[in-house]
């Protein structure tokens, strides 16, 4: 039950690479790490989920929170590298319709 969060800040874009499991135990860590980046005006954030093996609804809540915070600050959020299982989670919750999501296998939708 662990997560690794690797943040790479470039001039225009912040890339966050996640690996491991996002659940009730690890979600707070992700929220704390990622949230400050969403509060900058016009932030452009890409979160790569290729290394994520499991995510539950608590994890999903974190992404909705980041998404809302970015929207409020005119930022953009893009999620990449979603496994089929993760993609399903975003589909069911209707989030795939409002978020920018690229699943890993298809390389872009």
């Amino acid at each position, binding site marked *: 039950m662990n997560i690794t969060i690797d943040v790479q800040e470039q001039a225009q874009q912040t890339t966050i690479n996640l690996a491991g499991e996002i*659940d*009730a135990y690890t979600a707070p860590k992700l*929220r704390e790490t990622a949230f400050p980046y969403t509060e900058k005006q016009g932030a452009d954030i890409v979160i790569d989920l290729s290394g994520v093996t*499991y995510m*539950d*609804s*608590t994890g*999903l*809540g*974190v992404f*909705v*929170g980041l*998404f*809302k915070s970015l929207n409020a600050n005119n930022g953009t959020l893009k999620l990449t590298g979603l496994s089929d*299982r993760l993609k399903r989670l975003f589909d*069911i*919750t*209707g*989030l795939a*319709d*409002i978020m920018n999501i690229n699943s890993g296998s298809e390389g872009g939708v």
Partner: protein
Amino acid sequence: MNFRDTMLDEYKEILKTYINDQTEQALYMSQKFSRKSIEFKISPEEMISLHKTSIMELEPELPESLLLSLDILLEVMMSYGLAYREHQSLRTIQRELINEIEVAASMQQTLLGTQIPNIPSMDIGAISVPAKQMSGDYYHFVSHENGAISVAIADIIGKGIPAALCMSMIKYSMDSMPEDSQAPGDVLERLNRVVEQNVDPTMFITMFSGLYNPETHMFSYSSAGHEPGFFYHAETGEFEELQAKGLLLGVDKKAKYNEYDRKVEVGDVILLMSDGVTECRTEDGFLEVDTLIGYIEKYIHLGSQEIANKVYKELEYLQDFQLRDDFTLIILKRTI
């Protein structure tokens, strides 16, 4: 006699035994002594003072410097003593908190209690088991004046006490819905506005809302990002996923929720569940939908409550009796 009264003699005895012949027995005795000291809240600095007194009596010839060094050791241990007492008082507070949470959890049960409606044509069963003390899953039934029944199953994202408080809000909003807005899509749209305005912005809710009309036997439903349920067609013996598109509650206040209908024939079964059921983790990964369907199929001939209980038992066994997520399963079976 109190331990405090005898401790000096006991300690001296242990010390003497060990100084004389370094036996395992003396080490064992000192471990026992140490546990007893903790029980009687003897602080580390008291222990050192005890040691000093004992050794002075046993070995009067000891060099002065060694005895003096014990004074320094005693001073140094003072902070440890304080930290230990702080730890003790925190443990007391922690025990009190645990009690409070237990009270809150049982209050949650009472507050959120819902009556399974009793209608002639529908056999209804429900089971909801929290992974921790407070559940983030919630289900609710409402019996309407015209005989129709509403069913809702929800998962509050963000667990624990905030989720439980949020649930009460949902329950009371649902109970106070006007009789003329029973349509599942309307219910979700109203709740979405309530949640969007009132709830902590990092908290979201998935909900499946359904309405069964016992006169027409139509089941209409909408979903706000909730795990799709299943519909079992008795005639063909097939399971169909109750697909419905709709956004989580609390993300966008303008969200619209489409409504879908199914005609429920005699023997047909509607199964609603939380993601604790479908995201159930097993030793070799995740529960596959086919496996879940398999369990349901195995018990589909039983009464609704029994199906729910048996499926829960199977999945509990699969997870080695360690629920990682709250588990809720509702079964509606048309009987006549």
